[in-house]
């Protein structure tokens, strides 16, 4: 076991991919000389050269589209979108091309593309740099959406994504880059999809992903004497690992979904709906959600904190859900 930061895990993942496969190249704004907005690609330009660590102009649509074109031609591009917000400028390419080409061509043209982007709020970056669009992207058939929440996943999900024949979007939460974790050095791969149970429990299933996994684990620890919480890290928002979610909720009879994205129409709503469809008669309480408040993320710290799930709000929701007799 070695303690590393999430940023180092991301760095190691990209670097080892560049070393392992000639077809892999990194493309994005300021990935070269600058070393990446979140310093994930620091040092790579000098190691791999400008052909394989390619600085792109501020034209998200064109360089994401170009990465799709290169993937169609057999390359394995890794796109870094500086933040999730800028991905909207490339939305047409992601939704209308990357996600549809395989289908429109009747299975002929697959797009082995990986896009990494920094998502989420929590760094006082205000309304245009704090979105959580992963749930949005999970709406789209043809894409795979993954959300590494710890150093092991940050280190190995990229490899699984590159091995996948179809487009994979990796959402790295901005607040995780500096988090340290023990890297399991015996691991050499993780599956791309499938949820992980990060803590087992009997009274309540907390279903979450990304940066909210750590918050939920802390809430669960603090509640441990009163309520036994199971914490599920979804890891992949598309496809969703229904089997793991359902098995847990059937055991605990209660579900709390923690999602930093806005509540209306979010991935939390989707999970809740699937629980209604498939675990209704196993529920001993209504499904509850702790989500992002329905407001553009405000700048001041106290308001930003209030706008997204926190340990306290997760604990409170868990207590309400379990009721008075536990």
């Amino acid at each position, binding site marked *: 076991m070695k303690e590393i930061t999430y940023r180092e895990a991301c760095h190691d993942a990209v670097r080892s991919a560049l070393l392992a496969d000639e077809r892999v190249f990194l493309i994005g704004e300021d990935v070269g000389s600058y070393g990446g907005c979140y310093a994930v690609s620091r040092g790579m330009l000098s190691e791999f050269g400008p052909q394989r660590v390619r600085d792109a102009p501020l034209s998200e649509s064109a360089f994401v589209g170009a990465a799709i074109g290169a993937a169609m031609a057999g390359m394995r591009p890794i796109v870094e979108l500086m933040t999730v917000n800028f991905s909207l400028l490339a939305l047409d390419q992601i939704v209308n091309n990357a996600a549809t080409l395989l289908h429109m061509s009747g299975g002929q043209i697959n797009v082995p593309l990986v896009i990494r982007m920094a998502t989420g709020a929590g760094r006082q970056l205000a309304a245009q740099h704090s979105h959580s669009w992963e749930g949005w992207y999970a709406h789209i058939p043809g894409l795979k959406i993954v959300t590494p929440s710890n150093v092991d996943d940050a280190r190995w999900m990229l490899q699984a994504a590159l091995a996948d024949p*179809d487009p994979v979007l990796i959402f790295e939460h901005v607040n995780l880059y500096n988090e340290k974790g023990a890297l399991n050095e015996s691991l050499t791969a993780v599956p791309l999809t499938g949820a992980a149970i990060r803590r087992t429990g009997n009274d309540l299933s907390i279903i979450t992903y990304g940066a909210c996994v750590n918050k939920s684990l802390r809430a669960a620890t603090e509640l441990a004497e009163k309520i036994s919480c199971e914490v599920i890290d979804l890891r992949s928002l598309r496809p969703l690992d229904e089997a793991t979610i359902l098995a847990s909720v059937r055991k605990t009879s209660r579900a709390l979904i923690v999602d930093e994205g806005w509540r209306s129409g979010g991935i939390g709503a989707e999970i809740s709906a699937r629980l209604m469809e498939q675990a209704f008669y196993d529920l001993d309480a209504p499904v509850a959600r702790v989500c992002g408040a329905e407001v553009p993320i405000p700048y001041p710290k106290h308001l930003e904190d209030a706008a997204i799930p926190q340990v306290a709000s997760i604990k409170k929701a868990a207590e309400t859900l379990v009721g008075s007799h536990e």
Partner: protein
Amino acid sequence: MTAAAQPTVASGRETALCLLRDMLLCRRFEEKCAEEYSLGRIRGFLHLYIGEEAVAVGAMRALAEGDAVFATYRDHAHALLRGVTAGAIMAEMFGKREGCSHGRGGSMHLFSREHNFFGGNAIVAGALPLAVGYALATKLKNRRDVTACFFGEGAIAEGEFHESLNLAALWQLPVLFICENNLYAMGTVLDRSESQIDLCAKSSSYRIKSTCVDGMDVMAVLNAATEAVQHIRETGAPVFIECQTYRFRAHSMFDPELYRDPEEVKRWKLRDPIPAFLSKAVAAGQLLTTDLDLLEKEVAVVVQEAVAFAEQGTLEPVEDLLRHVYSEREILQSVGGVK
């Protein structure tokens, strides 16, 4: 018979016959499409290329087999000229699984990896970045292949046009940009959407070698494209060609053409690329007037067989609905999770 996508090898009669046959094939094939549409056997949107054939016929003949082609939703001629069979295209429009996109795409989404033909893209300007990326891959793989990208003049108003030209020039990528300027972006005439209607001025501003040719003259297009392809292969740098052309038919089948004067259409029809080329070639002694009848007969058979092939095609079973969302080796896994 297929329209072979070979570079111009011979001049004179042989080339002339090929060009005429290619243009006729596109024209007659699309007339049949219009007919089938009015009968309800082709559905969805149907955009016809009639009147613009000289552009694709001239440009495609300049390309080699290993080159790649990206086209728009007005893509029947391009697919045909690239060598996709008329039957596979017609079957695609009939929604049959024998179609070149297995029936999933329809008229606007013709694809054939086998022919390096990448659609069939129905978002205006959406394919330009793809072509740039495909050319980037070519360059990274140290190949000399050209990526040709067709688009209408409407695409020039899109940001992706400018972003793509910038990337292609900045990174010196082997892309042949072919602008099919038919004057109207659906119903909006060029000078109502562009402040600068000199399109080469725009592409030149990215320091891309640019030329403008008469898109009703198949030889002019062929010559310009041949020169461009040679330049790209030699330098690895992109080239932009504007082909001034005109579509004789409405934008799509359901278009009463309120935006243009019928007189204007008539005037352009006098420049129909097929008779124009025929009379020139006859005058030059390359063709005989009787060649037209022979080619008409040949083409009629191709079109007829295409319809028969499409009619005999089969429909994909509904149980296969969820196919082709993820690559096949993944399908069992993903269908389980993604409903």
